[in-house]
Structure formats: structure tokens, C-alpha cells
């Protein structure tokens, strides 16, 4: 019987205790942050949207290699010798045109692994976290400062320069080979001459052949070595 009254007393008193707590909370300062109007303080080292400072990018592709989800795509083109791209803020000389630097932020997992490898500290994570878009394509951020046309020009320039350089190299090689062959032929001829008093018809054709590749650069000759070199 006493338990019965104790229960009633406990029921009423604990209800009042609870009501006192909620009453006090009526006057407690609310914790709501009215989000779009006011924002939460973001931690200093927060990892949110990626940003690339293209002024400092040397197009080394380190970040793209580090990315575990392959969300960074970098295309570069070698600058021509007469093009001066300037220096990065860390003092590195820029040698490549970065024709494409795309980050698919929809794929990005915000791991931050792309940040440490960057030699010029140009890729970093910003505290910006509001970047939703209506189209998924809009989440691919194109950082390259060159337009597609400019990029194509630069790529073509670089390609041409490369081909020229390769052609030159090939010509030099050819010339070297020719020279060696000539030398060998001459030696051979000399040896033959010395060995037997036979005619000197063969050496007369050699000079004609050595002249031709030095200037002409037949595409057929340059194209064949390119894949080997690139690979």
C-alpha cells in the first residue's frame, strides 16, 4: 500500500521535475544557426572544394597521379623555345602549356591526396562547400587558362616542334649513318683499290644520297620513329 502512494508521489514529483527542466529550456539561448543567412564557423584546415591556382601550375601531373578516384585530367603541351611562360611564385620555370586541367568535383572524395605532391602548392582545398549544380556537367571544373582553340594551337605548335625536332634528329642520325657508311665505303673502296686495280664506279653515287635527306625530311621517314620515341 505504501508503494502505491510512493508511486503516485514519484509520478507527480518526477513529472514536475521534467516540467521544470523544459521550462528552463524555454529561456535557454537557442542553438539554431539560420543557415543561408548565417553560417557555421568552418574549421581552419577544412577540406572542401578544390581550387587550382593556374598561375603557379607547371603541369607536372603529380596531382592527377595521386588522385585515387581519377577526377583530375591534365593535358599539357610543350612551350616553343621562343615562348616565355614565366615563373611560378615558388621560382619554378614553367615549361608547359596546361591546355586542359579538369577536376570532376562530383567524383572528388575530398581526401586531399592531390595537395601534398604539388611542387608549387598550386592545388589546394578551400573552405567553400556550397557548390551544388543543376547539371552534372557543371560540376566539372575547367581550370585551364587557355581556351579550347588556344589549347589546340599550342598542342599543334608543340606537335610541330616535336616533329621538327625529331626530323632534325632523324636527319642528323641519317647524316651520321651516311657519313659512317661513306666512310666505310671509302675505306672499303680504298681497300679494294689497294687490293685490286678495279674501277671506281661505286663511290660516285654516295654523295648524291647523302645530300637528299639533310634538307628534304620526307614525312615517311620522320613518322616511323615517332611512336617508338613516345612509347
Amino acid at each position: 500500500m505504501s508503494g502505491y502512494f510512493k508511486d503516485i508521489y514519484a509520478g507527480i514529483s518526477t513529472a514536475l521535475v521534467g516540467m521544470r527542466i523544459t521550462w528552463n529550456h524555454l529561456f535557454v539561448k537557442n542553438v539554431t544557426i539560420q543557415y543561408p543567412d548565417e553560417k557555421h564557423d568552418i574549421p581552419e584546415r577544412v577540406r572542401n572544394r578544390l581550387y587550382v591556382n593556374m598561375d603557379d601550375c607547371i603541369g607536372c601531373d603529380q596531382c592527377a597521379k595521386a588522385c585515387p578516384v581519377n577526377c583530375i585530367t591534365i593535358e599539357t603541351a610543350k612551350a616553343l623555345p621562343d615562348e616565355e611562360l614565366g615563373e611560378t611564385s615558388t621560382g619554378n620555370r614553367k615549361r608547359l602549356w596546361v591546355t586542359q586541367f579538369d577536376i570532376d568535383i562530383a567524383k572528388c572524395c575530398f581526401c586531399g591526396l592531390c595537395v601534398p605532391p604539388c611542387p608549387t602548392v598550386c592545388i589546394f582545398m578551400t573552405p567553400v562547400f556550397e557548390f551544388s549544380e543543376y547539371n552534372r556537367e557543371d560540376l566539372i571544373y575547367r581550370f585551364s587558362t587557355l581556351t579550347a582553340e588556344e589549347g589546340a594551337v599550342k598542342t599543334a605548335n608543340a606537335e610541330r616542334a616535336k616533329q621538327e625536332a625529331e626530323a632534325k634528329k632523324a636527319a642528323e642520325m641519317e647524316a651520321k649513318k651516311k657519313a659512317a657508311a661513306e666512310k666505310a665505303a671509302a675505306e672499303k673502296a680504298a681497300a679494294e683499290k689497294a687490293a685490286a686495280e678495279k674501277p671506281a664506279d661505286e663511290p660516285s653515287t654516295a654523295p648524291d644520297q647523302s645530300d637528299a635527306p639533310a634538307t628534304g625530311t620526307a614525312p615517311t621517314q620522320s613518322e616511323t620513329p615517332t611512336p617508338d620515341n613516345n612509347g
Partner: protein
Amino acid sequence: MESLLQSLLGDNLLTVVLYCALPLVFLLLYALLAILGEVKISAWMQDRLGPMRTGPWGIIQPIADVFKLLQKEDITPAKADKFLFNLAPFLSFMSAYAAFAVIPFSSQYVGADLNLGLFYLLAISSLNVAAIIMAGWASNNKYSLYGSMRAVAQIVSYEVPAAMVLVIIVMFVGSLNLQDITTAQSGPFWNWMVFGGPKQDVVLASGEVLSASWVNLIFLPFFLASFLMYYIAGLAETNRTPFDIPEAESELVSGYHTEYSGMKFAMFFMSEYANMFLVSAVVAVLFFGGWNSPFGVYLGDAFDAPWLVAVEQFGWLAFKGLFFVFVMIWVRWTLPRLRVDQLMYMSWKVLIPFSFGIALVVGFLVVIL
């Protein structure tokens, strides 16, 4: 009030319609306030802000809610009993609103000055049970049926102690008329029932004289306990937390109104809020002096303006009613839901024995004093 309206309008029918519609106007405004109060108070108690976007501090939120409900599709389940399904919400609101007929909003306004006021109140508010079981049955949904079964078991159980508490007051005042009960508590706040009833002789509205003296202080503990019991029973009858097992979201989706949408749902909602105010108003009338000013004097008396007195009286009743509605909201956001067995224990093993015991003691005291 009625004669005033009649002299203004000069039309009997229009007068009656307007006279009947006055509490509805109040009720609709109160419902908007209560909806806002519910969300805001719950938010503040949980250290939140609540709605803040609709209007300054979100004060237009209830209006936005009403418009949302108006726009919603009115769905009737394919296998529902269409007639009962459509009838239930209106019956529910009707029962809640009909009870307002006997609530004395001021000494000048009471919808129907019935001598059987409290009896009528008990009878008409029990109609809500029929509406709830109608809704649950007609929905053809197991959760609705469970909810309505629980609701009926609960309301019927709690009607017993509630009626018994009414009997206690009726025994003391000697009248079932709510206007009489209010008049009996006229004067300063210590004449209120919760403080033991009137301390000097009172002339009731019916003309009878209720003899009283400071000896009535002896009733204070009994009336205080009765007030508490009636309020608890009222909470249970309106299906408010901690007695909201009929619409327990975590168990029954939302109980008997699971299948209702749009305005029919809004009718149930309205009826719940109307019932909340009804219980609060009845508590105010029975124990807290109804429309009586706690100071025993009115500003209107000083200016010799009877209409101001009536407005003040209405203001006091509304204030007291809204205060108890606030307490209901306060309790809702404090206490967790009871189990079914705890609910039944509370009614049959605590409230009913206590109310009968108090009725016995008060009846005895009324006879000998």
C-alpha cells in the same frame, strides 16, 4: 448580448446564427495561435527556433499550413466505408464545437445557459468517441482501427474520473449550470475553487444564495487534487501526450486519422485543438473562476462601461484557457508516452479511487458545513 445583437441586426435568424458563430470565430483564431504555439514552444523547449521563414519569426506559419491543407488532395481509400469515412471528421469537430455552447465566455455571453450545462458537456464531448471509432473503422486500415480502439478504451476510461470530479464541484455549488459555477467564484482569486471555493455568501446567477465562509479553506486540498485529476483526465480525453497512444506515431503511423488528408485531416486537427481549449476552459471555469478577474475588480467598472467588463471577462477566460493549453503543450514536450497498461492503471487504480474518495469526503463536508 443576444438582445444587443438583435437590436443591431433586427433579424432573429441572423442573430441566432451570429450568436452561434461567435465561438467559432474565436476557435479559428485560437487554433492558428495554438498551432503556432505548439511549434514555437516545442522548438524553444528544445533550444531551437521553430519556423522562421514565413513572416517575421514565422508567425504566418499556421496560415501557410492551412493553405497547404486546403490545396491537398482529398483522398478516400478505395475500400473505405465512404459515408462513415466522410462523416467522422465533421462529427468529431461538431462534438468539440457543440460543447462550447455551455462555456460561459463572460457574464454576458454563453451560447446556451443550460441548467444541465455540465451534464450536456459530458454527453456531447463523449460523441467524439463515436467519431473516432467511425474514422478508425471506416478507414479500413489496421493502424486506424488499432488507434481508434485504443482511443475509445482510453476516453471511456478517463471519462469516469472526469465525471466524478465534475460531481464534486456540482455537489459543492449545487448547480450544473456553468454560469452558476463561475458566479460562485466571483471576487478575488482566493474565492476560486482551486483555493477552496467562495469565502463569503454568493448570490448565484439563478438567484439562489450559496452560503460560504472561510471554513471552506478545508476544501482546498480536495479541490486542488480534483483539479489535478480533472486536468490529467482531460489530457487523456484529448489524446494529448503523455496519453497519445491512440495516435502514437512510432507505433500506429498516426492512429485513427492515418488515412485522412487535406481538409478532413484538418477537421480532426481542429477538433483536437478545440478539445484542448474546451478542457482548458472547463478547468478554468470549474477551478479558476472562469471569466472572473483574479483581482475581483474590473477596469470597466471604474469607467462605468459594462461592455468593457464583458470584454475583460472574456479576456480573463481566454487567458486562463490559453494558459492551460500552454501547460498541455508544455507537458507534451516534457513527458514521454505512457504504455497502455500504465494508462489503464492510472485511470482505474489511481484516478477513479481518488475521485470517488474525494467525492465522498467533499459530499460529507458539504452536508455538515
